[in-house]
């Protein structure tokens, strides 16, 4: 049975703002499905007794004191901007 279908691929592509042609979506759906089918072998392992893990390192509570550090000068930051307007990043107008 398929793990992922074309409709789901199209939905994820939409959320990721990827423009996929229908043929591409079909091809990706089939390839993704093969990959996921393969990974799904893991489902055979009994994990009822295992606590969910969000992190693999045996570390916790790594924090830093609330102290200010130097920032990057605005001129250097704005060099990363595709376009700038005064001291702002300029982007196409998007009203949600």
């Amino acid at each position: 049975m398929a793990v992922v279908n074309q409709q789901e691929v199209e939905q994820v592509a939409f959320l990721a703002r990827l423009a996929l042609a229908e043929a591409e979506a079909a091809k990706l759906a089939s390839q993704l499905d093969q990959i996921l089918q393969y990974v799904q072998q893991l489902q055979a392992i009994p994990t009822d007794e295992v606590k969910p893990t969000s992190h693999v390192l045996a570390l916790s509570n790594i924090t830093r004191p609330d102290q200010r550090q130097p920032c990057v000068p605005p001129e250097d930051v704005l060099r990363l901007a595709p376009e700038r307007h005064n001291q702002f990043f300029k982007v196409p107008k998007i009203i949600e």
Partner: protein
Amino acid sequence: MDYEPVIGLEVHVQLATASKLFCGCPAAFGASPNSQTCPVCLGLPGTLPVLNQRAFEWGVKVALAFDCQLACVMKFDRKHYFYPDLPKGFQISQYDQPLSQHGHLDIALGPSTKRIGITRIHMEEDAGKLLHDPVQPASYVDFNRAGVPLLEIVSDPDVRSPEEAYQYLLDLKAVLGYLKVSTCNMEEGSLRCDANISLRQVGTTAFGAKIEIKNLNSFKAVKAALDHEVHRQTSLLQQGGTLAQQTRLWDAKAEATELMRTKEEASDYRYFPEPDLVPFVIDQALVERIRRELPELPAQRCARLAKAYGVSPYDAQVLTQHPSLAELFEGALRLYPHPKPVANWVMGEFLGYLNANGKEPDEVQLRPEWLAHLLEAIDKGTISGTMAKELFVDVLAHQRDPNVLIEERGLRQIVDEAALNQLAEAVIAGHPESVKDYQKGKANALMYLVGQCMRHSDGKANPRQVTEVLKKKLETA
């Protein structure tokens, strides 16, 4: 058919830490655009976020103040969406293991209280700020706010009216003010609120379609927008229409909400654990230390003020809405132990001045001794009640002790008998016509003579005393 509103509120509060949630950039408001950023908060490749210990502890503090159950272990998750204010393409937030859940806030409703459940309080980073060009099809991004620590406080759908929503926000803000973890300034965006509202038939328990309202810039806007939605949804349902889940924007000018988008499902955010941050164990020792540091909270203080000073429940509630008001009240009482006049001046004159000037109680300094000195001066007859009210405005505007202002401006009332006698004699000698009129029985003549005394004393004579002195002199003349 009768419908009742079911309302839930989501409040975002910025923590007033020195630095951002995951990096050392300043979290302060008002710096020039894009001057408070670094590779971490800009989401550049190869950077590693590290949690701000103070933000973590303040989160625990707020959770405790709302009686939330703290998680044993909390973690952070990535919440994905594309918007130009989000440099990484995701926001570091908390999904299934948040800081805390299942708290509550008892809100004041007339003489009683109502318990509003708090679903969860979690930590997340703020996004940048977008300015939309009014003419060109362009927006401008300032990333100074990106990464500023936020707590999201989500209420249970326990709120049943726009008035309750308003009170919930007032009381919530009061608690945050007492904890001194945020400036809670809606204009600067350090406190923001979204509201969810659905309608259901009275007597039923299922929820209707949820409408989320955004762009609520003040508590009054929250109430107005909810009032509008109650009416809009009621008439729609009564006409046989149906409602769909959607997000609407409040337009304060039009006093109406407009459709923004149909709501995305939660799974569309593709939450997954933030691999760059390790889990955080919230151990008992930390919790107990922070619990011991909790200040007296508004509800406790309100009950104490009512009991200790005999002020009415309403007065106690107003006085405890902001910590600096309560501190002013109690501070002035230590010097001038008369609760009723102190409460009246704090709530009448001081709050009146703040409202008139659009200020918060902590934005205008009124030292307790200034208020005490002013009230003492009235009692001693140094100044009249009317003068005191005028002087009070100057005390606030110039930030000076009223006693100093009284001396500097020579406002001291003339209460000295000899001086008043002298004044009355001079006025009587200077106005023989009025004296005759008075002796003929014209009451107005006395008022005229009192007026002349006031004029000659530059308003410093006490009019009541002057009247007495004049009468005595005129009768024995």
